[in-house]
């Protein structure tokens, strides 16, 4: 067995505390945090020293930025545009409501875990209000902003090719969603307007860092939640008994990046899906089912059966739904709750017509 499989199970008593998750988004207050002065009181506000460089450095690492500030949206946004920083902030929450509500909006819009947000504010009251409503959010005193790059949950973030494009991809997502919300009719009809291409390929050396990152960052559409290190992934990539496939999704707005990964062990009588995951940004695109169908056809063509490991976590219900709605049935369940699924391959659903599938492996 590999070391990853020995990690503590969800729900079981962990041998050691779970590693804190990497920070995915920094949420900034404005007055006396991002800048000195209070905008609404007519101050000529000035950015805190080094804050522009800091924001750009975090952005380059693939860490997103947002805002949660009590201000008038138009005024604050104009000021951010003048500073040349507006484009860095996704789903800014600039209003007079509770900051805990703003944080909840950001979390929902970005579709990332509450425990991957870091909130930075100069006022203890605001930090306490957010912490009370969302205990898993990290709260930081604005005075400590200079140490953000050294924060243990930021320093450890791995930088991949996709990381450098992450903000751009979220901006493309915002465009897509605007188009989607203004579209009338069935979601499938909207999907058909996107000209989606789904590319399935054997992972290459250059993909391994991203593949590792996907196993760490992906929680909802993840069949086991088991994380794999680069070394392990490299050995699977070279193993004749395994397939390590990585998937990219593109549409007319741009590329979603490398958003899917699967590890298949080729056993004598059957293929065994050890891991299958998809970035949550693709959740409404149905590509998890597309990848599963691809693996089904491949096993069927080889005259094999198809099995899959599944470990239920608190957050991967949608992946369970994907497997079970694709026709996988539970054949065994360990005392720890680890499930083995099997598909009888008697009926494999056609791929949706709104997506073009390319396979290279």
């Amino acid at each position, binding site marked *: 067995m590999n070391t990853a499989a020995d990690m503590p199970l969800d729900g079981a008593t962990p041998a050691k505390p779970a590693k804190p998750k990497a920070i995915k988004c920094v949420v900034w207050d404005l007055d006396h945090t991002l800048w000195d002065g209070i905008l609404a009181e007519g101050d000529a506000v000035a950015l805190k020293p080094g804050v522009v460089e800091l924001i750009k450095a975090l952005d380059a690492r693939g860490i997103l930025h947002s805002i949660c500030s009590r201000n008038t949206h138009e005024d604050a946004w104009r000021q951010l545009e003048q500073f040349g920083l507006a484009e860095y902030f996704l789903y800014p929450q600039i209003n007079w409501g509770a900051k805990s509500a703003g944080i909840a909006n950001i979390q929902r819009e970005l579709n990332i875990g509450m425990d991957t947000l870091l909130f930075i504010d100069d006022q203890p009251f605001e930090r306490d209000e957010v912490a009370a409503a969302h205990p898993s959010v990290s709260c930081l005193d604005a005075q400590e902003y200079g140490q953000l790059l050294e924060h243990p949950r930021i320093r450890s973030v791995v930088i991949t090719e996709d990381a450098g494009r992450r903000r751009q991809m979220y901006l493309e997502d915002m465009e897509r969603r605007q188009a989607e919300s203004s579209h009338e009719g*069935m*979601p*499938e009809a909207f999907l058909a307007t996107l000209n989606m291409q789904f590319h399935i390929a054997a992972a290459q050396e250059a993909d391994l860092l991203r593949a590792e990152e996907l196993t760490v960052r992906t929680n909802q559409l993840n069949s086991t939640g088991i994380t794999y290190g680069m070394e392990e992934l490299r050995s699977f990539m070279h193993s004749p008994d395994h397939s390590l496939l990585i998937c990219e999704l593109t549409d007319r707005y741009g590329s979603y990046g490398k958003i899917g990964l699967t590890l298949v062990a080729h056993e004598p009588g059957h293929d065994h899906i050890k891991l299958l995951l998809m970035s949550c940004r693709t959740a409404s695109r*149905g590509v998890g*089912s597309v990848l599963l169908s691809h693996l089904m056809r491949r096993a069927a063509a080889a005259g094999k059966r198809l099995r899959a490991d599944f470990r*239920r976590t608190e957050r991967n*219900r*949608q992946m*369970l*739904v*994907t497997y*079970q*709605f*694709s*026709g996988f*049935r*539970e054949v065994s369940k360990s005392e720890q709750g680890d499930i083995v699924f099997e598909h009888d391959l008697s009926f494999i*659903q056609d791929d*949706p017509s709104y997506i073009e599938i390319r396979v290279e492996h």
Partner: protein
Amino acid sequence: MDNQFNALCQQIREFVEANMNVDDEVALKDDDNIFRLGYVSSLFAMRLLNFIESISGITVADEDIVLPNFSSIDAMSALIQKYRSAA
């Protein structure tokens, strides 16, 4: 069968009909298998699950999230009835 239950079933029927990839002329029967007949996709199955949970307030247990429970109006009615009588 009480009125609330009938109303739920009617909402599900309307949701399915509004999402079928067929002419308006096709009449949906209560025991039609909507997946086998190609009326809807597996992606729709997920939306159907979300829809049913949102209108009925039930949370479908893992073991019940299988296509046969969502494959026809009859099957979905039976599923909801099961949770309602268990409550």
